[in-house]
């Protein structure tokens, strides 16, 4: 039996981008309003899961040819690197730095090393979730 998934597939393409940008939004907003790396990462993963449900694993793999284990590694290195960075400038491990800048277009913006750490968290969460789902899905 073949199910006609046209409507699901069509909407999934749109919804994927909506969810993805929402994820990016909550990720960046996380320092001031609810959100952050964990939620952002999970929402991103769920967007990809939606694609997998609408199409199938192989198609999604072709669309997003990412090795998620590398994503995990990059995330961990980023998080550890951010934490260790402060040691090289003579501060204790895990000291964060932040300041406010006036950037064109954005106006007053705070740049924070914690965001880099959070980005590491984000990547690990996406990577691990997708690794798990992909490997289970591929298993016959």
């Amino acid at each position: 039996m073949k199910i006609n998934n046209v409507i699901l597939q069509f909407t999934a393409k749109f919804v994927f981008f909506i969810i993805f940008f929402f994820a990016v939004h909550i990720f960046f907003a996380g320092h001031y309003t609810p959100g952050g790396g964990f939620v952002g990462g999970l929402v991103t993963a769920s967007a990809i899961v939606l694609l997998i449900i609408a199409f199938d694993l192989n198609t999604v793999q072709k669309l997003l040819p990412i090795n998620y284990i590398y994503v995990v590694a990059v995330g961990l290195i980023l998080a550890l690197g951010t934490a260790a960075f402060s040691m090289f400038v003579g501060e204790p491990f895990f000291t964060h730095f932040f300041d406010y800048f006036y950037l064109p277009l954005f106006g007053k913006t705070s740049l924070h090393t914690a965001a880099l750490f959070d980005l590491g968290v984000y990547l690990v969460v996406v990577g691990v979730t997708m690794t798990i789902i992909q490997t289970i899905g591929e298993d016959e």
Partner: protein
Amino acid sequence: MLQVLCLFVPLIAALFIPFFFKKIRNVHTGWFVLIVPLLLVIYYSTYIPSISKGGTVIEQLPWIPSLGISFVSYLDGLSLLFSLLITGIGSLVVLYSIFYLDRKKEQLHNFYIYLLIFMSAMLGVVQSDNMITLYLFWELTSISSFLLIGYWFNRDKSRFGALKSMMITVAGGMMMLGGFVLLSMMGGTFSIRDLIEQAPQLATNDTFVIALVLILLGAFTKSAQFPFYIWLPDAMEAPTPVSAYLHSATMVKAGIYLVARFTPIFALSEIWIWLVAGIGLLTLFWGSFFALKQTDLKGILAYSTVSQLGLIMSLLGVGAIAYHVDGAADTVFKYAAFAAIFHLINHATFKGSLFMIAGIVDHETGTRDIRKLGGLMSLMPVSFTVALIGSFSMAGLPPFNGFLSKEMFLTGMLSVSEFDLFNFATWGPLFPIIAWVASVFTFIYSFYFVFKTFTGKLNKEALPKKPHEAPIGMLISPVILASLVVAIFFIPNVITDLFVKPAVVAIQPFLYTSPNDVHIHVSAWHGPTPELFMTIGIIVLGLLLFFTLSKWQKVYNVLPERFTINRLYDYTMNELLGSWMTRVSGLYMTGSIRKYLVYMFTAIPVIVIGTLIFKNAFAFSFNGASPVNLYGVILVAVLVIGTITTVFAKSRITSIVALGAVGYTVSLFFVIFNAPDLALTQLVIETISVALFLMAFYHLPRFSKAEERTRFKLGRAFVSIAIGAMVTLVALSSHSQKFIASISEYYKETVYSEAGGGNIVNVILVDYRGFDTLFEIAVLAIAGISIYAMIKLRLSRKEKNYENK
């Protein structure tokens, strides 16, 4: 900064080794590795001019400043000497290993990564002024040694040797940590330099002696002193470059270093002198005596190393006597510590070359069994020459450097008989006698090593390979070391001025303030002194016994195997731990996981409820409770229904969906309890979890219909109710009494000013408690990779069986 970073250079270089190994297969990975110690040796050489004049350099990188723990690179005479040994011998060993280990057959990346880790660790040990980081690096040397000994991990003996060395050295390391902690409690600092300054006050503490003994245990296990030496012979299963490097030139000298470094603190203790000198002397004799029992070339060298380490150790012990003699800088007592350091350098040169020769013999003939070897002299002339130089130096013959330090060693031992404190008047004369006897045996085994291998009858049938001279590259390192052996004999005072005197100042700050104060001139000829007659006696008796060796070697079979220390180790590991303990734990470890769970779930409520009752901790009050809210009650009802469905569902799918429903309900709870972050996360996670369950659904078994026995069902229900009751009681009491204000107030006040954020929960995650999050994502990554591994890597049972190839 640079100086501290240099400690980590090998470690950082290790990160790149896999790439070199995988990508550049045509070039032996060793060539890339060689750059690291070469650069470091050049770097540390730039310090020689200033430090040989008595200068010191220190650089710190705070690590955990709140606890006073930092990475320190402290270079004085002692640590610079060791650093140069580590990097210098390291370079030669890496060069040698390039020809020793086959590029195509061996797992070179593993080998060089372990070796570089070791190099970093060892540099850290000798340069750390902070005891905690010293301990850290110390254990890292044990671990890298473990990995290197077990490098050929498919051999039973390698694994056995690796485990044995790890067990003994790590146990010693733990003792040492205890000693460090005690010292730091007495002195209020982790810095060794600061502790040295307050040495006399420290000695008045009750725990001073305990700290002393604990630290000595660490040093003795690492430096293979009696009775802990048993790991060293078994460590010879490592590839020969490793034996030459770790197990003769550097790692085993870490204990020597530790004793030397702590001498200024402990020298005033009688126990220190007796233990260090006594155990050292015993080890010296024991090792040299049993070296002759060995039939394996590396076995002989291992026992010889044990014995030589004992020699250096005993000299350090005697050197501490100088503390108790007024004006010792001008008396005979000044020689011991000097001789210790001098011999340490000499030992590194001759023993390093001998190990490399043993490796060459093994490599080119296929065996190290001295009973099969013989007559290689004409086939391997270069190796023979090097072996001859090394052995003669080890035996203490001129014109090699071993002669100089051996004479000085005898001087040091003779000086003991002139010391009249601490019962030395009675027992002191024993020192030179034992030293002399041990020297005779040293002489014999040196000859045994070189002449049984290279002279006599060549027995080609017994050798697995057709013997021939080693390739030129393999000979470079031993030849360099052998030239040093000769060179040091002719220019001893250059070496001692540059390296030995500054190191002696570090060991005996109570005698000297600068290397210029050390008035010792090394010369080969002192006139007819007692030392000279002792040496002549050693040569005469040694030759006599060497030529009659076959007649009296049977002596070694008299001592039954049953009473050796090795048997004690085996008994502890196999019988005591292996058999008895297994039997005891077998009583409750039945293999049934459900039983274990029942144990746990019974123990937890018993302990917790018990504590609540006996500590009178249970409390119940409605004060401060928030009002019951309608939505909350509805959600509780949904939660209960969902849970009941989950528990009693007959089909898998119902149960999974009901679990999802419970999860969504929980996220609604988070909404009404003002936790937006949690609500969001829980919502998404629940979605992904359900998706996960459904994906795995295909692979999962159906619920079995088989009924439980009623008795177990009742017990199960009882245990669950106990757990539920316990949780409720804990929740109620923790709500009803709050003794300590929550740290959250601090977070709320500083979240904007200090951390520059607005969402307190997120700021806690990434900033205040960033450590938690870091570890959490690490756990998450491990879980992900394990899942990947479980599914993708399916080793069949047959493939797993790679016992003893």
